[in-house]
């Protein structure tokens, strides 16, 4: 157990800090970069790639910085950017780029990776369908090969960013007679292909952060496929893993917890700070123990990753527990605000721009999305604890 960093890393951290100090003012405001396409973001991203703070391990030949993988350095970069409150860079769409690098053809790597990490090519994901949520592999959007083209018909849902995206990576059924996991292919195509219609999908928060995307006789060149025909399910699983890892991030938990403490210190009932109410304080403390546990659990995963060890249970639980914990923090925030906790939109007297009310709903969406809590528990039970799957059954 040694929580200090050795000299190489201490130096690296200093270098990052110096970079941030010098360049902070050039950084665009707001949330992380991919999916957005303004010039300031692109310039910033290019600067970061140049210094190795974005696309760090992506080979130079495809437009990246080309460093050896070093999880601690990644961690230091993320930490320092978070502390400085500077928007971090990205490695292109984190769901797509690793897949292209691992399974794409040489031609695809050259054509796709560079523009994507520079922010010139923005992607959306076409996986879920209205009838295929937890049971994603039952998807029914079809692609039929006609000559040199796939002809795609069907509907996707939860396609966030589809209205701004240049490209989509999409799971489609190409082998309708094969067992469900073996009949899927992973296609990539332009969003301005004729026959694609994007309709905003309003959620309970009142915002349209997602879309429904409809395909009517969309024609896509035959070679715009990653991996082989019928192997799309296995191609996609690599990307699902990447998405899952990002939910329940302990840095985010800690940041939210700090905001929550601030609120309990500054808000008052009848002139008395909320943190002096034992019942609210006790709930805060229970959450603190969980946040600290998840922070420590995160360090354990990080260490396992640096050693190429499998973190096991420590990793499996992150999504389930992290999302629930975020939701509970939002719930406490709303509770302590009392009547103020129901204000919304552009109402006066909003605290933190209404983020708690919004998060309370959004976090519930995240508990459901990317594998519901029930699916997570199945996975923990079966994959981490080795409990048997449900027996085979007759369809009902």
């Amino acid at each position, binding site marked *: 157990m040694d929580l200090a960093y050795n000299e190489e890393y201490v130096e690296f951290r200093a270098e990052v800090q110096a970079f941030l100090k010098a360049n902070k003012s050039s950084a665009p405001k707001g949330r992380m970069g991919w999916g957005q396409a303004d010039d300031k973001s692109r310039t910033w991203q290019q600067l970061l790639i140049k210094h190795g703070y974005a696309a760090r391990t992506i080979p130079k030949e495809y437009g990246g910085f080309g460093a050896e993988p070093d999880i601690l350095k990644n961690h230091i970069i993320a930490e320092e950017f978070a502390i400085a409150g500077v928007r971090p860079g990205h490695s292109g769409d984190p769901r797509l780029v690793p897949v292209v690098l691992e399974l794409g053809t040489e031609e695809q790597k050259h054509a796709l990776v560079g523009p994507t990490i520079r922010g010139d090519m923005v992607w959306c994901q076409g996986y879920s369908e209205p009838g295929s*949520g937890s049971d994603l592999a039952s998807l029914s959007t079809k692609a039929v090969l006609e000559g040199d083209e796939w002809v795609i018909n069907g509907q996707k849902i939860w396609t966030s960013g589809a209205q701004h995206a240049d490209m989509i990576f999409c799971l489609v059924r190409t082998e309708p007679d094969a067992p469900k996991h073996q009949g899927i292919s992973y296609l990539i195509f332009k969003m301005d292909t004729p026959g694609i219609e994007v309709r905003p999908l309003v959620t309970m928060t009142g915002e349209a952060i997602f879309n429904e995307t409809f395909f009517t006789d969309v024609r896509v060149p035959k070679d715009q496929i990653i991996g082989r025909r019928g192997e799309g399910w296995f191609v996609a699983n690599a990307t699902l893993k990447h998405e899952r890892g990002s939910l329940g991030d302990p840095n985010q938990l800690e940041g939210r917890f700090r905001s929550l403490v601030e609120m309990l210190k500054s808000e008052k*009932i009848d002139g008395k700070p909320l943190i002096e109410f034992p019942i609210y304080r006790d709930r805060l403390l229970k959450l603190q123990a969980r946040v600290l546990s998840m922070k420590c659990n995160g360090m354990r995963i990080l260490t396992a990753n640096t050693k190429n060890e499998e973190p096991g249970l420590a990793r499996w639980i992150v999504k389930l527990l992290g999302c629930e914990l975020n939701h509970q923090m939002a719930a406490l925030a709303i509770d302590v605000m009392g009547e103020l906790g129901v204000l919304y939109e552009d109402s006066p*007297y909003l605290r933190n721009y209404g983020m708690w009310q919004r998060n309370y709903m959004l976090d519930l969406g995240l508990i459901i999305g990317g594998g519901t809590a029930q699916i997570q528990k199945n996975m923990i039970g079966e994959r981490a604890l080795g409990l048997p799957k449900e027996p085979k059954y007759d369809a009902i």
Partner: protein
Amino acid sequence: MEFALSEEQRLLQDSICRYLESECNLDRVREAAENNVTQQAEVWQGLSELGIQGIIIPEEQAGVGLGFLDAALVAEALGRSVAPVPFIGSSIMAPVALMAAGSDDQKEAWLPKIAAGDVVFGVGVTEQIAQRETTGIKSDGGKLTGKAMFVIDGVDANMLIIADDDGALYLVDVNAAGVTRQNLKTIDKTRAVAEIVLEGAAAEVLPGSQNDREPLLKTIDAGRLMLAADTLGAADIMLEKAVAYAKERKQFDRVIGSFQAVKHMCAEMATELEPCRSLIWYAAHAVYDIPDEARLLTCHSKAHLSEVGRFVAKTSTEVHGGMGFTDLLGLHYWFKRIGLDRQLLGAPELIREQAAAVQGW
């Protein structure tokens, strides 16, 4: 000994529910919400024809003269339909305040109008529960100065009942000089809460409330009970919708309700919710018939329904999966209504502390 709804109460419940199902369906609610309408005129008119606005107002003041259990059945039905109408403030809290503390003239002047639907009252008592943004409401020579937040049904009101720092209750005309109203946007678009700023506004005290906090407390009790019943109705339909969805939605070649995890989520919601119905019946019955127990039961009804409502709102949404998170099924209207009910007139932690005080703990 009969702990059950009477035949008349079942008829009342049926007729309101049937009316709302046909005239206040989700499309109507959505339309009202999207246009920022918090008092849906046709529905309010329809309820008026059913006598709802005068439900607890005595017959001599042109009301229906029923009790709080009847009123709770109405509130439950309105919660089931997330109806955008000013029932809790205008039809319950304001009459309670007037009946408890109004002069004979005041009762005669306002109760028949409320019962007839000719006036809508907003009720501002939040500052007497917990002050957060405000510094109180002072009365001086028949004029009020200060700020009342979260005035229930205040957006569409013609008249207001406002509590001052001593807990005395006042009638205030919304259009009087020195009264400024601002709509407070909340998560729940089916109900209206307003901020009322008073700058030396003319006000008429309800005399019975001048040296007695009891009328204020009764007004708050009545509002809390109705909020609890509203949550019961909203949670009940969220359970029903979850069960229906679980019977219909298929994943992995099975309806999801055949999965033990989903089945147990539904069972847990039902288990939490079912005794709440009896609790509210008892609390509502107690208001007139077991007054010694009424405040304690009202506190528990509001606090407990807040907790159970939150659990059901979350769990039902989870049963609906991604669909529950979208606007497509409109499930969030109930989710948010339950959310608002929880926070108005005191969040559960504060109300439980009052339940302790009531018992001398």
